[in-house]
């Protein structure tokens, strides 16, 4: 297996052109003029920073109220979890599972898995590189699905304006929740999966 770093080759992230450059490889791509690097810039520091910010926001995102529903004469205040429980009790169990996966499981798995990736690459671990690369790929693909609940709340707010009969308002959890999604996306895009395969050579 020949690696780019051994041949002093790197692919431009923008236009995929493979160019020759020396390590640590900061040169300009002859085709598109963008900087080409063999590894993402400051990957670990940036990834840790975004990840810790996301982990902090995860707490208010899940404990604060996500949505207030007023339907005369009753009044409901739902966190993410109680909203899912409500869906479940209404008989929409498959949908409840879907929202549970997108809103609770994915953010939690993302934070945990990225933490594992950062710790193991920091130790130049040789533990299951294929599995860890796959894990990273899953994080990349699944990451933005957590935005689901933010969209639902915004839609319900827009549509349910039936005067004094029914009203839906977003709660204070919406902001930290959107923050968690965006920060975990930034954290995983900052992480450089090639570090999984760099066996302490650097």
């Amino acid at each position, binding site marked *: 297996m020949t690696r780019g770093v051994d041949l002093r080759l790197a*692919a431009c992230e923008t*236009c995929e052109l*493979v160019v020759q450059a020396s390590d640590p490889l900061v040169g300009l791509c002859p085709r598109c003029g963008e900087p080409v690097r063999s590894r993402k810039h400051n990957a670990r520091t940036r990834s840790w920073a975004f990840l810790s910010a996301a982990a902090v926001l995860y707490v208010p995102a899940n404990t604060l109220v996500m949505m207030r529903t007023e339907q005369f004469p009753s009044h409901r205040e739902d966190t993410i979890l109680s909203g899912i429980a409500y869906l479940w009790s209404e008989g929409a169990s498959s949908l409840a599972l879907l929202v549970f996966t997108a809103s609770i499981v994915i953010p939690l798995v993302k934070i945990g898995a990225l933490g594992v990736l950062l710790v193991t690459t920091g130790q130049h671990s040789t533990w299951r590189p294929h599995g860890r690369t796959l894990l990273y790929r899953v994080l990349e693909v699944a990451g933005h699905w957590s935005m689901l609940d933010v*969209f639902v709340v915004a839609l319900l707010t827009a549509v349910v304006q039936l005067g004094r009969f029914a009203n839906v308002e977003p709660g204070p959890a919406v902001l930290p929740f959107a923050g968690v999604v965006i920060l975990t996306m930034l954290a995983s895009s900052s992480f450089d999966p090639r570090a999984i395969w760099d066996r302490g050579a650097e």
Partner: protein
Amino acid sequence: MRELAICMYCDTVHERVELPARRAARCVNCQRPLYHSNTDLGAMLAVTITATVAFVIANLFPLITLTSGGFQTEATLWRAITASYVQDLPVVAVSLAVTLIGAPLFELGLLLWVLVPLCFGTRPLGFTRIMRLMHLLRPWRMVEVFLLGVVVAVVKLSGLAAAVPGWGLFGVAAMTLALASLASFDRGEMWRRADAIGATS
């Protein structure tokens, strides 16, 4: 020089090979996707136009119509954004505007800007800068998540009043499909085509 491709996930160097139709090249080491076989820019343009039409439908028509007693309200995409802005959640409004309107609108507009000249054999104006911008925007487009969001919202509403999905939802669904199909095209082909044109002109 032979054309090379380097895996962005594990840094393994590959020699580019011709692929059979509808296939993707995967890294021999980590099996992550390397590049796609579909280099038909004309087909790519057709799909982009489809996605643009779907985008217009998704924006113009209501996503959900709610009827209760004598009241009827409609949720359009735009209304969902302004409603969250009015509720003192400008950050949510902005993130909706970016992920649902801004990112897809820019991506489709830029793709049209690039693909139409390329299909006619001229180099698009500002080609490299546009390609860079497209590359940066792509992760922030969340149309497919929004599609699921509309479905969840309709189900949540069914206990409250008569909620009917509108034509806008079909627009969102069609756009999701078209955008997913756009992902199966080899974007490197746009660079190669532009390079070839640049060399002859």
